[in-house]
């Protein structure tokens, strides 16, 4: 039995310059260099990427879905944050 298991890494891939890195999955690797090498083989076998980020999963802090109400609901009734909230006559152009 192995003494220590390889940690888990989250993989983010930029598909082309101009676009953001997107999370595409995770994998196990002994360190960040190996995570990069494995990510190349696992997630970019068909030209899916031009850049890879790897982050050890334990360093990610995620919000708890149980708190979704207090976190995200306050934004729902703030219609004044959207341009359509404001009444303007039809003949106003370029606005």
């Amino acid at each position, binding site marked *: 039995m192995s003494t220590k298991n390889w940690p888990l890494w989250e993989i983010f891939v930029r598909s082309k310059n101009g676009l953001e890195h997107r999370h595409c999955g995770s*994998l196990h690797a002994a360190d960040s260099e*190996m995570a990069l090498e494995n990510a190349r083989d696992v997630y970019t*076998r068909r030209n899916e990427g031009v850049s890879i980020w790897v982050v050890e999963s334990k360093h990610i802090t995620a919000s708890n879905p149980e708190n979704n109400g207090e976190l995200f609901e306050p934004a729902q009734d703030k219609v004044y944050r959207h341009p359509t909230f404001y009444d303007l006559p039809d003949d106003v152009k370029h606005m």
Partner: protein
Amino acid sequence: MSEEQIRSLERQFDEKIARDEKIEPKDWMPEKYRQTHIRQMSQHAHSEIVGMLPEGNWITRAPSLRRKVALLAKVQDEAGHGLYLYSATETLGISREEMYEQLHTGKAKYSSIFNYPTLTWADMGAIGWLVDGAAIINQVPLCNTSYGPYARAMIRVCKEESFHQRQGFEIMLKLANGTPEQKEMAQDALNRWWWPSLMMLGPTDDKSVHTEQSMKWKLKRKTNDELRQQFIDQTVPQADILGLTIPDPDLKWNEERQSYDFGEINWDEFWQVVKGHGPMNKERMKARVGAWERGEWVRDAAMAHAEKKQARKEKQAV
């Protein structure tokens, strides 16, 4: 949590799935949903990994460079698909080591099709055409399944899978149009892989224990019998193009149903193989467990090296 609270959470959960909303790892889910997904997803991952073995057997003996690069790429994809699925399963709270342990001790199953031997080069054709064909029919509906990480993994898998089937069909086509011996080899492979491929789509609906619940959770969109009929209806015309004969004397077009009628499947054989008595069950597990055990010192060395490098970096920083 009181029983009433749980029932209310379950009701909300079912409604969410009915609305086609996805379930994500940190969302509340019934324990049975978690366990069923761990079982199905890990078995799916195991099947991808064990599925490399029958084909790996032929890489060094591929008849041309074109065939060799294609087979290598296909086997590498299967490793990738296994890894997507293992990491998706880990989001449900089971570790990779636990999953390997379940596979290696026989607690977890993998697709019984991989317990048949690959005797000739034509088997590479038949596997791509029939086994991957049946797998695609099984997998496409899973791109819409309710568990987000599984659905996302399946989208990647399905995108990559279609070349697998096409390369298999191309192998069959070449052999079927080759010398009489080559055509006979293709026919022999079809004869051996046809029935196991039909079994791959699972027991008949009246014997399938998980269907109803799985349909509700969108782990399944069609029943096993529906999928099997779909597979047969789309594969028979492909066999005609190859000029090969499907080894079923009862296979007949049914005008009224607009589908093929087909003969009795030998379910005794299926259950025998599932229970571990197929021609290659022992061999496959020996190869898997052996690879895991022989790789242990490499995994340990990589970890020790990573720790040493990290320690050196920290020392320099001080």
